[in-house]
């Protein structure tokens, strides 16, 4: 039986003006019909850092993440504000396609298209009007290098993406996202379908990518959060309970619910 924790007592950090933010949400709420899946999430994501969102299944972390690039449009009702470069991108008149160009997303299951490796990357570029053989080729190479996949596939760019291993497919999905040269990369449990060796590779890639991108990663795996992230937010039953630097979260959690989760009492 899950203990009842008070949702009143939370410990959520904010940053002062010296930290530049990639993204920030004010009172973000998500409803699936009558189901209130996310309550008042107020989070600030610093630039060029990896922020991990952790919590048990059903805590709302994926729901929250999917709201950030408007992937919940048509699926759920999202209220509140999402600040990005000083613009509230949760406004209905914002161009969602432009948002998704700048805020990329990688999903839980590797989901390359049933096309060649090269076509997987070129697809989005072409969809966004980027043409020219040389430009496309250089973007393909750059993004595959960025995702640490280039050396493994450079001789087989025309091979079907589905012939790659799970870990390679996931890095291809990362490459596909960064080919658009976004600012922010959202990752929804990117390693949950991967074995441990592939996971290490993806994590190494992420640590490298944070130099250029701000990364928000949802993870089930507390060890992974402690390995890759600098900031860490703990979600519980649709509430953000605690948001602190990752080191603090794991060594000195502030409130009982986080302490119990970190200690492994539930989740």
């Amino acid at each position: 039986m899950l203990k009842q924790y008070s949702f009143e007592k939370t410990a959520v950090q904010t940053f002062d003006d010296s930290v530049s933010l990639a993204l920030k949400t004010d009172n973000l709420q998500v409803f699936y019909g009558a189901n209130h899946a996310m309550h008042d999430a107020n989070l600030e994501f610093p630039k060029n850092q990896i922020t991990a969102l952790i919590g048990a299944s059903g805590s709302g972390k994926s729901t929250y993440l999917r709201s950030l690039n408007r992937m919940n449009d048509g699926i759920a009702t999202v209220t509140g504000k999402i600040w990005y470069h000083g613009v509230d991108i949760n406004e209905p008149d914002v161009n969602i396609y432009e948002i998704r160009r700048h805020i990329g997303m990688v999903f839980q299951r590797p989901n390359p298209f049933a096309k060649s490796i090269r076509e997987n990357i070129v697809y989005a570029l072409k969809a966004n009007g980027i043409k020219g053989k040389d430009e496309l080729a250089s973007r393909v190479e750059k993004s595959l290098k960025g995702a640490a996949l280039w050396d493994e596939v450079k001789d087989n760019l025309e091979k079907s993406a589905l012939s790659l291993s799970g870990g390679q497919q996931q890095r291809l999905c990362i490459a596909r996202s960064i080919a658009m040269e976004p600012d922010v990369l959202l990752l929804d449990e990117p390693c949950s379908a991967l074995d441990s060796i592939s996971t290490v590779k993806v994590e190494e890639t992420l640590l490298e990518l944070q130099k250029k991108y701000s990364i928000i990663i949802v993870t089930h795996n507390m060890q992974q959060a402690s390995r890759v992230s600098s900031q860490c937010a703990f979600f519980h039953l649709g509430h953000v309970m605690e948001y602190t630097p990752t080191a603090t979260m794991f060594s000195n959690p502030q409130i009982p619910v986080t302490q119990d989760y970190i200690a492994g009492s539930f989740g």
Partner: protein
Amino acid sequence: MEQTNFQLKKQDVQSNEWSARLHHATRATREDWLGRGISYLCIGVIILVVASMLWFITSKGLATFTQNHVNVWQFLTGTNWSPDTGHIGAAPMIVGSFAVTFAAAIVATPFAVGTAIFMTEISPNKGRKLLQPVIELLVGIPSVVYGFIGLAVVVPFMRHLVGGSGFGIISATFVLFVMVLPTITSMTVDSLRAVPRHYKEASLALGATRWQTVSRVILRSATPGILTAIIFGMARAFGEALAVQMVIGNAAVMPKNLISAASTLTSQLTSGIGDTIDGTLPNNALWSLALILLLMSLFFNALVRVIAKRGQLKHER
């Protein structure tokens, strides 16, 4: 380690009592036998029916060439169909059948794919509640009703629009278009629904628009399914007899244009079969037409299988 050397006792090896107990039939084994027997019987009957149909049509259809010594090539390419005088050129019917089939498929496919996209991507709710029943209804309407509407509405309309009698390929095409539309639509809907959701999400998350996502990802990955749908539609059009016969004019001559009266393999069969005597050339010639129909439906089936296999390979590779 020393191996223990144990010997089986003789009664363990040969126990008559246990042997009888473990071999005798019980209700459970008898049920097994009964069930298996019924299944084999049913399968046997079906195989017998199919095999005898194949044999019957083939042997009858080949009689034209073996007994009446008609040249196969002349049968397939000859344009003069007057069996009573010994001329049996089936080309007008073959051309007619293919003409109405392809024309109906070409006209119906854009409408079907468009409807299917609307039902799955643009308005899934309305699609399920409103369009799905309508399409199922269209599938269930008997072909004689389609033919009757064609006769009462389409033929006069065509007569008014382009002159002539109104009977002809274009009227048949129109009737077949309405008849194959639900088939192609509902199968296209199935194949669009079978496109993994994550393809769509991946595409949208990359900033692709709904149009780009539908046209470049969803339609493309559903292509084998859509082709299968079109072929099933064509098979239905190719095999449709009654409705076509009511509007095509039934002139066994080479069609000159879309508004000229023509006939198809099926319409010729249904209109001619009552007037011939078993075992004579006119009768055998009709069986030969049936044989062509049979071979074509086998061809359509094989094509569907090839496409399905290719589609599978693409997803596995």
